[in-house]
């Protein structure tokens, strides 16, 4: 197992980076803010049909490329750097990852090829365990009631995987977008690059999915940790480049501000924190493919390190730019909001540490 990128992974990183620069620069995120669209459908089509990003970690037998989690992580680093808004995390990472760990062959055959192609959008209605749906009605015609929020891409998803209390433990259910009694409300998301919704179920017909829901949800939490850590590593790198670049050209008191230790030392700490977080992301991504027994802890480590490091970095990015960094026209606030959101989505820092402590058996 190596941490450094293979030639193939480097080529993938380069092509995604080029794609982001050409097709989804930060100006396109600003267009989404104006239009209110959750993501750019043209960009999503290219990401999936042309680059095959949605199928990277889905096995070939279900229509994916079977390239594994390390390749997926490499792509997420580059997408994160450009704050690319897309259903990739909700659909291709979390929903697909959950399905793959269930035993419901019919559901896998029905849904995964569409998810891998980017033609079907799925999501996992997992929200920190605070809001849970419950099973109503009898076992022959299951239906769900309750509220789950915030759900990633909840408004756009064609199908939702909803964990619910069945009376004898948690079961995962499949709910279709057109099902009666389903209300989806788009939320005001702190981070412009995420589309979040509140899902309300009122005796909504659902299909129980076969398999160990608890194990699948635990796997999904690990995937969320790896994915958010990967995106954060990319975004943090972008903040570091942007801020050190500015510190080289902005002059005050007759010097580029990067010459002053008050500025230089904060950037040095940012670089140090990034190096440790990135190494942890590489370790988690590789463990996911090669040492599954280590994956949960490794993904937690990466997430814990980057949730804090990236948020510290966005705060410093605004601060070190000074006044210009606090304006709407500057990109610093786009990262600030992403850093804020990445810190709390799928587990606050305290919950992340609790999960890691549990996995370590403390």
């Amino acid at each position: 197992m190596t941490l450094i990128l293979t030639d193939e992974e480097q080529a993938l990183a380069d092509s995604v980076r080029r794609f982001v620069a050409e097709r989804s620069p930060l100006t396109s995120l600003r267009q989404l803010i104006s239009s209110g669209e959750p993501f750019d459908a043209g960009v999503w089509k290219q990401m999936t049909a042309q680059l095959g990003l949605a199928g990277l970690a889905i096995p070939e037998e279900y229509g994916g490329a079977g390239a594994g989690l390390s390749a997926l992580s490499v792509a997420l680093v580059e997408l994160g750097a450009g704050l690319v808004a897309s259903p990739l995390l909700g659909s291709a990472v979390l929903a697909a990852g959950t399905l793959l760990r269930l035993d419901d062959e019919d559901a896998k055959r029905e849904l995964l090829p569409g998810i891998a192609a980017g033609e079907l959008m799925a999501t996992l209605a997992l929200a920190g365990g605070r809001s849970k749906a419950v099973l109503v009605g009898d076992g022959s015609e299951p239906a769900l009631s309750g509220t789950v929020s915030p759900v990633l891409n909840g408004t756009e998803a064609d199908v939702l995987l909803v964990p619910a209390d069945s009376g004898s433990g948690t079961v995962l259910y499949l709910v279709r977008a057109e099902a009666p009694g389903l209300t989806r409300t788009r939320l005001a998301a702190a981070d412009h690059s995420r589309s979040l919704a509140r899902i309300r179920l009122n005796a909504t017909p659902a299909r129980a999915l076969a398999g160990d829901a608890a194990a699948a949800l635990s796997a999904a939490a690990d995937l969320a940790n790896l994915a958010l850590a990967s995106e954060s590593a990319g975004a943090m790198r972008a903040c570091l480049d942007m801020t050190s670049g500015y510190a080289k050209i902005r002059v005050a008191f007759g010097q580029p501000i990067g010459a002053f230790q008050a500025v230089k030392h904060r950037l040095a700490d940012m670089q140090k924190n990034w190096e440790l977080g990135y190494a942890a992301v590489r370790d988690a991504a590789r463990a996911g493919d090669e040492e599954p027994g280590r994956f949960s802890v490794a993904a937690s480590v990466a997430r814990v390190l980057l949730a804090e490091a990236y948020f510290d970095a966005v705060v410093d990015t605004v601060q070190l730019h000074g006044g210009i960094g606090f304006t709407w026209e500057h990109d610093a606030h786009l990262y600030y909001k992403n850093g804020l959101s990445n810190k709390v989505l799928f587990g606050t820092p305290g919950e992340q540490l609790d999960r890691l402590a549990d996995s370590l058996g403390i």
Partner: protein
Amino acid sequence: MTEDFRARARAWLEANAPRRAAGDDDGESGAATTLAEQKAFQAKLYDAGFAGITWPTEYGGQGLTNAEQIDWSREARDYDLPNGAFFIGLSMPGNTILEVGSEAQKKRYLPAMLRGEEIWCQLFSEPGAGSDVASLQTSAVRDGDGWVLNGQKVWTSGAQYSDFGAVLARTDPAKPKHEGISMFIVDMHAPGVTVRPLKVATGHSPFNEVFFDNVRIPADGLIGEENKGWAAAVVMLRHERIAIGTMSAPRTSPLGYESLRSLAAGLGRTDDQAVRRRLAELYARSRGVQLFGLLLREEAMAGRLPGARGSVAKLAGSDLGRFAANVALDVLGDQLAGSDAEELQTVATLIVAAPGSAIAGGTSEIQRNIIGERVLGLAKDPGVDRSTPFNQLRVGTQRSDVPASSGEPR
């Protein structure tokens, strides 16, 4: 081929070196062994073909690659090699002589170091020159074809048993501070060399002060060129950071995650959510530092040398030590303030020692300057002293009630 090497290394270590016991992390490898035993072990290491793994064979090395060096480090981390007295000499003066020394110096000194015959120390820091080591005041004045050395060095590890030292001294005080320094080989047994132990905050004396009183340095004692000693110093400091930054951390340390976790369990503290979270965070941060070290080594194997990123490893290691000390504080509570349990006293001593790692081998502030300037490419510190002749500079510690004494040793 490296698989063979690794298997050979493992077999040799198992047969010849003691396994590392929990708690052996006070930075004094093989502290309990005598100097004679250390020399004998280094000689045995040399005979077995594991000394100077990457050094050329003509200077006593094995002529192998970084891959074998990394294999060796990985295998050796589980053992307590009783040759700590040679660590500084081999990694710092040794590597520097290999890079900038004369052919005669390489032939004379390198094989003797590898065979365990001669121990070396590094003499850079002075009471008035720490982070700003280029403001050093020890002087070497021309006398015939050699030099006469006067001044004081401090924080010198191993000076009490060293045979030679690599010393920085000022050879031209009329030049700007970086341009009037030379590096010499000084015979630590020469007349005029006095070594005194330096007691630190923990009560131990891991370092020394070294005084030079008219010590003669022969003509062939100059490393590199006269007045080009700063360039040689930069080479040595780079080797120092790499040696410290990529040192394989021992698996167990009383301030490490495993030890603190079992201490916490023993004290019934792991039911406290705050303590559980602190321990989990310590685990995460330790892994981050460990994985970054691994990444640097992989990059080195792939031909990308760490360069100034060695400073990232050094800074991260010191930060981790500080964090671990804080976690220990949370875990042990007021038992740290006073205890008759030896285990807790060891932890308390290490907490007292923790600030040292953010100072030794270049302070964290200097590491941040290096990262900012050489990794991120930020503008250099606006120093006022780069072009001023040294003898017109204010250096060291100065009080307003005492007139400045430019360039004179205190």
